[in-house]
């Protein structure tokens, strides 16, 4: 029987779990737009798709949850939607607003080490506590990758989520 779904693990597409995470969660945030030429390179699109699977696998190995978020900073939501569509499934989309996009505000402008560049992938960890009210630890950026050459190269290395000079337990 023929199937259109790739069988090799590195060619799997990411599928969100749609479950409320408890405890540590790894979040991959992709920032791009239709106005960003490097974001439209086929190798970058392929790397973003592959990244979600690779990072989700590492999160699982570490006993953590995972979520993939896309922040498309086109002004027009329709254009932002068309930008994320070829990138496969995400858990959350933050579309529109150009550089005032809420996800970009949080992870670029409000972070003193934030980087205003596209394409960019941020790997963030946070701890989620459920209850009558959910609570969240302050997110910590584990990895920040920018550039149309750097992102495919990082994914080719397995998209390691630990900071270059640290090892995760």
């Amino acid at each position, binding site marked *: 029987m023929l199937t259109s779904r790739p069988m090799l693990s590195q060619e799997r597409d990411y599928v969100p779990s749609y479950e409320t995470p408890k405890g540590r969660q790894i979040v991959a945030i992709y920032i791009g737009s239709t*106005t*960003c030429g490097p974001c439209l390179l086929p190798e970058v699109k392929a790397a973003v798709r592959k990244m979600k699977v690779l990072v989700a696998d590492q999160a699982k190995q570490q006993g953590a949850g995972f979520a993939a978020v896309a922040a498309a900073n086109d002004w027009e939501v329709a254009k932002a939607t068309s930008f994320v569509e070829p990138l496969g499934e995400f858990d959350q989309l933050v579309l529109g607003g150009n550089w005032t996009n809420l996800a970009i505000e949080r992870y670029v402008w409000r972070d003193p080490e934030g980087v*205003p*560049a*596209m394409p960019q992938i941020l790997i963030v960890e946070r701890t989620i506590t459920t209850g009558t009210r959910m609570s969240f630890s302050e997110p910590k950026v584990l990895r920040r*990758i*920018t550039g149309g050459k*750097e992102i495919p190269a990082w994914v080719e290395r397995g998209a390691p989520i630990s900071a270059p000079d640290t090892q995760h337990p």
Partner: protein
Amino acid sequence: MRGVLTRVALFVALGGQFPGDTQPLPKVSGSLVRVRGSTRGDSAIEVRVDIAMTEGWHIGARQPGKVGIPTKLEWQLPKGWSVTSENWPAPKTEPVGRDSAFIYTGPFSIHASLVGPRATSQEPIQLVFSYGICREMCIPGEVTLRLAR
């Protein structure tokens, strides 16, 4: 928006570098030069906006096509002054997938004509040049240029 872009422009102008999986950042610089006339006497002046950027990087044209970040001039003029014309150089065309991007890849100049009252004005003539500079990544930025008296 202005504030955050100023922060970016400063960062870019300083040629900052991001740690980790990144590359050195580009520089964009510019100047606003009087070509003819004086705000003290004439009712019309011609100015030139000179823009330079790090080699190998590019910025979008005013109308950069479907792919590209538009470059904008926002004039800040004394009361009574206005821009009567802006002449931008023809951008280069760069294929991006099935689309084309219209870009500037090196130093370029924009010529503009301004008119205003003959009376002397102490207010500056300046403009905000906003852009997205790209190579393997795109970075927003802006620079404020002031015409020397």
